[in-house]
């Protein structure tokens, strides 16, 4: 078994499901012959045919609306948004229909669709190609929001998302699509969609992150270890519904928490985690919660974008602040 990248793990997961479930199909712009602008669906149309992997007209409303139609009639569409900045025209169908279909009809119609969204900055792309907009979906009842940060989790979580009977927004940290390889057995084993992943045990401070920032967060933990500080690292991975218990448990142990995300600070999903700590873990906290995030600005075009994204240094500094507190 050869080691593969995160994006190859996604391709592998989609190929598995296309093969094993005839109701699965892929649709999106350029997902067919071209295999997607990031090559996530590379080769799939060639193997499974144009009736399983469909190019769509250039319209995101169309992609979302057709997916709702397909999903409610027995198909399991995997829709691709070409970039994070193009999900907005999809929101109406996702929020008003995909998320509501089951509840609206008391279960008569359901909407098992997956929307794959290449997510985030740091790849020197043009405007609207670098957005971290996961918070958009987290206040919407009826959806699941998932974001893997490793090839193995990409495979297992995407399988789970496709098989889930409800709509899943599946964010893919594009900056780490090809960052490193990992062995990912092609065994069709899905991961649970309702747990956080503890990636590193620690006792002094809990670092919570998701997506591409998991990389910087792990590096920060390494840097802290070098200074004798033991950081626990949690990859939230399944943002909604949130497995807060895992986070609370860790903070119960460490008493300190730094939340790291790429999205703007105000009302980013980090706010929800910090809020729950303020509600449910108040007595465990030995120091104020820290958030290391993007600024409340648009992510700049690429000459400045690395100054916008949370850095290892910022995470380390925040962790140290929690240790210096009281």
């Amino acid at each position, binding site marked *: 078994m050869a080691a593969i990248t995160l994006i190859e793990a996604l391709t592998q997961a989609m190929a598995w499901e296309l093969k094993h479930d005839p109701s699965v*199909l892929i649709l999106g712009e350029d997902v067919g012959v071209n295999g997607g602008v990031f090559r996530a669906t590379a080769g799939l149309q060639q193997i499974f045919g144009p*009736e399983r992997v469909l190019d*769509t*007209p250039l*319209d995101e*409303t*169309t992609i*979302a*609306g*057709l*997916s*709702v*139609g*397909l*999903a*409610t*009639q*027995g*198909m399991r569409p995997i829709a691709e948004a070409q970039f994070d900045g193009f999900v907005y025209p999809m929101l*109406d*169908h996702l929020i*008003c*229909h995909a998320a509501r279909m*089951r*509840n*609206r*009809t*008391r*279960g*008569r*119609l*359901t909407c098992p669709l997956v929307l794959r969204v290449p997510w985030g900055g740091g790849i020197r792309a043009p405007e609207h190609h670098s957005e971290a907009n996961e918070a958009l979906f987290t206040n919407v*009842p*009826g959806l699941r929001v998932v974001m893997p940060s490793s090839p193995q989790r990409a495979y297992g979580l995407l399988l789970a998302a496709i098989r*889930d*009977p*409800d709509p899943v927004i599946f964010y893919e940290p594009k900056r780490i699509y090809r960052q490193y390889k990992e062995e990912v057995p092609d065994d069709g084993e899905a991961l649970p969609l*309702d747990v956080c992943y503890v990636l590193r045990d620690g006792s002094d401070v809990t670092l919570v992150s998701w997506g591409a920032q998991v990389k910087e967060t792990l590096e920060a933990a390494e840097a802290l270890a070098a200074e004798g500080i033991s950081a626990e690292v949690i990859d939230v991975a399944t943002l909604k*519904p*949130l*497995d*807060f*218990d895992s986070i609370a448990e860790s903070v119960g142990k460490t008493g300190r928490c730094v939340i790291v995300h790429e999205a703007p600070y105000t009302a980013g999903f980090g706010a929800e985690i910090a809020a729950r700590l303020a509600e449910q873990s108040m007595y465990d906290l030995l120091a104020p919660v820290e958030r290391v995030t993007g600024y409340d600005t648009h992510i700049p075009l690429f000459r400045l974008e690395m100054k916008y994204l949370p850095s290892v240094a910022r995470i380390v500094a925040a962790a140290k602040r929690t240790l210096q507190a009281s």
Partner: protein
Amino acid sequence: MSTAARFSIEYLQYLGPDGRLVREDLPAFAQDRDTLVGLYKAMAFTRVFDEKSVKLQRTGKLGTYASCLGHEAAHIGIGSAMRTEDVFAPMYREYGAQFLRGVKPREVLLYWGGDERGSDFSGPKHDYAWCVPIATQCLHAAGAALAFKLRNESRVAVSVVGDGGTSKTDFYAAINSAGAYGLPMVAVIVNNQWAISVPRRMQTGAQTLAQKGIAAGLACLQVDGNDVIAVRAGMDIALERARSGGGGTVIEAVTYRLSDHTTADDARRYRDEAEVKEAWAKEPLSRLRSYLTGLGWWSEAEEATWKTESEARVDAEIEAYLAVPPPPVEAMFDSMYAELPADLAAQRARAIAREAR
């Protein structure tokens, strides 16, 4: 200049407002007494239902309700042409079509009565529920049609939008998809001249709404939406085309909203009584009744009997509706996900506990 393409929009009408035939080549169904009387009865029943529903709302026993007064020919024409296995994606006032597909009047009332259970109706399980966000249902129909095409099923998806709905981008997205993929779909526009207070002419510069289909490369047809024979005939053509792999059709059924937009609206604020009066002269029931009566297929006695029967049936449905107890508080949670997430289970428990207090 040379000409790159040419198009024309045909108009279909059989029965004039006075109930006389404007053309003689009636389709077979319209030469069949039972069929035609059946269409009339369905229209008349729907009108009784509508009238009683509006009254029910006025007495506070129903929420906001969207009347279908004047749309009966369009709705019955659509519903009668479809097969059970086809998928119907309605907007919100096509009760006539839905009754023909098995939806019960009490379910319509339950929905407008603020209870989700109305949407778990007795019509085909695959039909869509009422759709509030204008025109979004058209894309669901297109998606359904795509599923049929991919699975090689001989089924058609039928969506309905209003004149206002044709401005909504989803309508365009739906017909463009139907054209791009060659989908078995019929996109019906029920042009009742008004979108709440906005008249048809302010929605678009297009001469007809049927021609919107040209942008998508679909077949287009305009029909007299107050003539149930024309609507049904147009639907038959379009459904047959779709079923035989010929792709989608846009049908504009030209009619008039004789009522307020909904019971929350007061149309006198923005539209001329004279216009409404004129429209009454073209309304769908009386013309078909004259035609049937002229043929000797229908009589005043039958009319009276059917009215009484319809009223009794609707009254029974209203009783049944009013007898439905409110849902328990946990109903809010129980259809959110296939399996209740832990977070939500805790909220559900708290909500139940609050009720108990």
